[in-house]
C-alpha cells in the first residue's frame, strides 16, 4: 500500500468518463455523461433521485454495462465488466446500502470479493493497519451483525481502502449516520485525499453536504451532465437550480432539494402553486396545540417498546402526540426506529408494551387492520414492501384496504370497485394506462399517489407519511407536499416521518427528534435550528 504515486502528474486525471450512455428499455438513465476526477480531489456528484447517479456508478463498478462510452484511468482506457475488474483498476466503492454480510465476521467481509487465497491473519492485520491509519478502529474478528451503523460504515470504508483504490466512490454515505458521524467521515475523506492523492467521488442529494465537503461539483439532470464547476465558485441556490433545470423559488421545492429556507416561507410561494391549490394555507399551519391537549390528541402514542428478533431495542418507550390538523414531524437519522414505528402504525407488528390511542380510544393492536379501521392511514416508507401489491391492478390496489365496502356477502361488487377507482384516479390525477393495468406498470410517483388516494379515501383521522418523498422527482415531491398540507388543513392529524431536515422544517409545525428508538426532544418549528436538531439527533439534550 504505497502512497508515493500521489500527485506525480497533476495533468492526467485519476478518472475520466467519456460519453457514458445507458438505457433501460425506453428510459434513458445516462446520456453521454462526461466526468473528470483529478487526483487528490473530492468530487461531488449531485442530482435528484433518478438523475442517473446510481447507474453511472454501477457502470463504473462493473455492475451494469454501458451501451456506449469509455472509462479512462490515469489516462489509459480500461474495460470494466465485473466488480473484480473495477477493483483491479483501482476503483473502490462504499455502497449506500451496505454490502456487508451480517452473519460473517469483519475480516471475512473485508476479504470478500477479491481473487486469490484467503489468509485470515493477513486480512486481520490489514484491517487493523488500515483502521489505525485512518482512525477507523474496529475489531476484525467481530461479527458484523453485532456492529452499529457507524461501525458498519467503518468496515465498508476499510474494505474499500484496503484495496488501495486510486478512486474511492461513496454513494450517499451519510444516510444512516448522525451529524457527528458524518463529520468524522468527511474528515477521513480529507485525510485519505490530501495525504495520499486519491480521487474521491461523493454522491449525494444533500446540497449542504456537497457544498461543505467537496472541491469540485458536478450535477446530473435526467441522465445528462448539467453543470460542473469548483465548489468554491458556486452556491447552493445555483446548484439547486442546476439540479431542477429552472429557478427554485418554491419553498417546498427548495426543501425537496435540501435547502433550508430560513426566511418567511410565504414570500417564496409562487402564484402558480397558490392559485392551483387555493385550499392550501400558504404557510405551515400554526401550531394549534401543545402539551395541555392530552387525551384529545388525534393520535397519541404512549410508552411504545419494540424489541427486534435479535434482541436489539428498536423502540424504547416512545411517546408522541399529534393533534387534529397539525403536521408533526418525526426527524432522525435513518435506522433509529422510524421504520419500526412505521411498521407498527401500519399494523405490521405489535409492540411489546405501550398503547396507540386514536381520538381518545385505545386501539387493539394484535388485530390486523385494527389501526386502519380506527382511522390511521399510512403511506409506508417502502411502498413496494407493504403499501401496494405490484401484480394486482390499479383498481384492486385502490380498494384493497376496505374490501367489505366493495363486496357482498361473498362476491366482490365489480362495478362499484371500478367506479370508486375511476373517481380516485381522477381526483388524485393518477396517470395510468387503464384501471386494470397492473400497478407494476406505473411510475413511482403514480404508485405513491395510488397509496395516498387509497389511504385518504377512507377518511382517516390520522395520516402517517413515512419518507413519503423518497425516490420521487421534484414535481411529485411538490405534489406530495401540497397534498399533505391539504390533508392537515382538512383536519387530519399528519405524522411525517422523515430523515430530511429541510422537508421537516418546511412542512411541520412541531418536530420530534428520534434517536435509538427514543424521542430525545420535541421542538416547535420556530425554535428549531439545524444545530439544535443535530444535537438531539445525536442523542444529546438540546
Amino acid at each position: 500500500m504505497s502512497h508515493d504515486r500521489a500527485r506525480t502528474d497533476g495533468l492526467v486525471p485519476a478518472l475520466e468518463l467519456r460519453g457514458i450512455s445507458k438505457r433501460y428499455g425506453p428510459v434513458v438513465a445516462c446520456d453521454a455523461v462526461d466526468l473528470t476526477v483529478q487526483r487528490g480531489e473530492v468530487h461531488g456528484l449531485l442530482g435528484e433521485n433518478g438523475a442517473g447517479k446510481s447507474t453511472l456508478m454501477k457502470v463504473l463498478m462493473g455492475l451494469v454495462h454501458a451501451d456506449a462510452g469509455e472509462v479512462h484511468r490515469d489516462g489509459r482506457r480500461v474495460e470494466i465488466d465485473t466488480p473484480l475488474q473495477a477493483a483491479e483498476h483501482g476503483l473502490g466503492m462504499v455502497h449506500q446500502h451496505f454490502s456487508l454480510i451480517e452473519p460473517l465476521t469483519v475480516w471475512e467481509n473485508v476479504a470478500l470479493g477479491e481473487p486469490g487465497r484467503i489468509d485470515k491473519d493477513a486480512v486481520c492485520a490489514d484491517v487493523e493497519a488500515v483502521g489505525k491509519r485512518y482512525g477507523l478502529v474496529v475489531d476484525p474478528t467481530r461479527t458484523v451483525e453485532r456492529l452499529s451503523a457507524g461501525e458498519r460504515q467503518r468496515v465498508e470504508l476499510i474494505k474499500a481502502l484496503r484495496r488501495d483504490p486510486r478512486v474511492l466512490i461513496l454513494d450517499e454515505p451519510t444516510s444512516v449516520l448522525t451529524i457527528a458521524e458524518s463529520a468524522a467521515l468527511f474528515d477521513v475523506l480529507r485525510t485519505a485525499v490530501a495525504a495520499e492523492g486519491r480521487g474521491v467521488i461523493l454522491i449525494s442529494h444533500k446540497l449542504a453536504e456537497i457544498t461543505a465537503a467537496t472541491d469540485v461539483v458536478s450535477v446530473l439532470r435526467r441522465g445528462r451532465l448539467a453543470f460542473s464547476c469548483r465548489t468554491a465558485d458556486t452556491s447552493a441556490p445555483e446548484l439547486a437550480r442546476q439540479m431542477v433545470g429552472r429557478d427554485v423559488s418554491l419553498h417546498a421545492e427548495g426543501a425537496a432539494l435540501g435547502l433550508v429556507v430560513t426566511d418567511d416561507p410565504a414570500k417564496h410561494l409562487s402564484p402558480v402553486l397558490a392559485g392551483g391549490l387555493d385550499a392550501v394555507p400558504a404557510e405551515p399551519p400554526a401550531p394549534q396545540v401543545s402539551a395541555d391537549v392530552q387525551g384529545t390528541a388525534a393520535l397519541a402514542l404512549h410508552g411504545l417498546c419494540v424489541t427486534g428478533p435479535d434482541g436489539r431495542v428498536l423502540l424504547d418507550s416512545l411517546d408522541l402526540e399529534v393533534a387534529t390538523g397539525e403536521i408533526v414531524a418525526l426527524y432522525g437519522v435513518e435506522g433509529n426506529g422510524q421504520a419500526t414505528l412505521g411498521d407498527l402504525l401500519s399494523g405490521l407488528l405489535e409492540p411489546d408494551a405501550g398503547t396507540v390511542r386514536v381520538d381518545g380510544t385505545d386501539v387493539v393492536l394484535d388485530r390486523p387492520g385494527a389501526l386502519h379501521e380506527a382511522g390511521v392511514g399510512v403511506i409506508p416508507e417502502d411502498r413496494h414492501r407493504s403499501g401496494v401489491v405490484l401484480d394486482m391492478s390499479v383498481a384492486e390496489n385502490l380498494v384493497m384496504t376496505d374490501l367489505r365496502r366493495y363486496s357482498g356477502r361473498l362476491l366482490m361488487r365489480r362495478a362499484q370497485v371500478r367506479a370508486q377507482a375511476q373517481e380516485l384516479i381522477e381526483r388524485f390525477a393518477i396517470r395510468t394506462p387503464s384501471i386494470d393495468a397492473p400497478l407494476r406498470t406505473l411510475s413511482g410517483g403514480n404508485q405513491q399517489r395510488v397509496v395516498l388516494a387509497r389511504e385518504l379515501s377512507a377518511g382517516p383521522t390520522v395520516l402517517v407519511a413515512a419518507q413519503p418523498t423518497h425516490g420521487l422527482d421534484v414535481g411529485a415531491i411538490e405534489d406530495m407536499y401540497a397534498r399533505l398540507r391539504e390533508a392537515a388543513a382538512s383536519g387530519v392529524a399528519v405524522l411525517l416521518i422523515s430523515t430530511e431536515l429541510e422537508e421537516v422544517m418546511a412542512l411541520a409545525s412541531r418536530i420530534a427528534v428520534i434517536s435509538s428508538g427514543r424521542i430525545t426532544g420535541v421542538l416547535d418549528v420556530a425554535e428549531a435550528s439545524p444545530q439544535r436538531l443535530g444535537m438531539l439527533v445525536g442523542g444529546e439534550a438540546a
Partner: protein
Amino acid sequence: MTGPAPVRRPLASYVVGSTGLRRPSADAWRTAGITVGCVALAMALAALLVTISDGSPSEVVDALYTGSIADAAGWSQTFVNAAPLLLVALGACIANRAGVFNIGQEGQLLIGAMVGCFVALRLQGPAWLVITVALVAAAAGGGAWSGISAAMYYTRGVNVVVTTLLLTFVAAQVVQFAVLSPSLLQEQGMGNGPARPQSDAVPEFLRLASFGQYPDLTIGVGAILAVVATVVLAVLLGRSRWGFRLSMLGLNPLAARHAGIRASRLGGSALVLSGAFAGLAGGVILMGTVFRLQPAISNNFGWDGLLVALVARSRPGLALPVAVLFGGLRAGSSYLASTGVPSYLVDVIQALLVLAFVVPPVLSALWGRRIRNRGAVPESPARPSAAAPAKEEVPV
C-alpha cells in the same frame, strides 16, 4: 409477536408465474409459441426413449389412445383417474394462491383415505350418511395433516415445503402402522393364511355410485364432485372477497396484513383446505375404486395432482383439462403392457410435460427483456460510436 414482521416472499409469485398477473400480449404469443415447441420436444424425447428400448412409438400412442379416449370405456377410465388428480390440484391451487407451497399432498391423501376408511368400516347408519361422513372425515384428516405444517409455519416460521414433504413420509408410516394393527384397521383374517397389510373391504353399499353401465360411459360420484368443486372454486378464487384476499396474501403478505388480513388465519386455512382437498381425493379413491386401505393406495395421485396444478398455473379452470390429460395418460398406461413398454413411461412423460409448461413463461420473459434491451441500444446522438451502424439509432 416481537420485532418487525418477517418479510416472507410471496412464493405464489414465482412458483406458478404470478397468479392474476396480466401479461402483455406480445409475451403471451411468444410464450405460447415456446410452449408448443417444448411440448413437441418432450414428446420427441419420450418417443426416443421408447425407440431405444426396442418399443414402437406408434404402438405406444395407439395403446395410450385405446386405453384413454378411444371409446366410452376408455373415457370412463380417464375420468376415474382424473377425479382425484383434479381434487388434489384444486387444493394446490388454493395454497399456491395464498403463497404457501404445499408439496405434501401424497401424505395428506393417505391420511384422508385412512380416516375415511376408519369411518366407513366402523360407523353404523344409513348408507348416504355413512358415505357423507366418511368423505367429510377424509377431508378433515387430510386437512388436519396439512394443519400440522400450518401450525409449525405460523407459530415457529418453519418452512412449509420442508414440513409438508417430511410429513408425507410420516404419513406413510402411520398408514402402514394402521394396516398392520389388528386393533386398528388390519383386515380380519378370513381363516386361510395370515392377514395381509391392508384393511377390510368397504362394504358394497357404501361404495360411491357411478352413473352409466359398462361398456357405456360411466361417471363416478368422485368425478362429479371434482367438477362441481372446480366450478365453485373458479368463481370463488376469481370473484369473491376471499379469493381477492388470498391473492393479496400470496402476492404481498405485508400489504395484506396492512389491509387487515391475519396471515396465520387466512394462509393457515388455505393450507388446511389444500390438505382437505387431498384428503377428499383419498376418500374418493378409497370408496370409489380401491375399496381397501393399502399402503400403496395413494399411487402417486398426490404428487401428480400437484403437477397438474403447476401446469395449470394455479387456475382451477385450467386444472380441469390438465387433470383429464393426466388422467388419460394414467388410464392409457394400463394398456401399455401389450406393447412391451413399461407403464413407467407415463411418469416420464408427465414430468417432461410439466417442464414443457413451466419453462416457457420464464424463458419468454427472459427473451422479452433481452429483445427490448437490444432493440433500444441508445447510441447517443452527441457521440455516435463508430462501432454501431447509424441506422440503429433510436430517436429519443
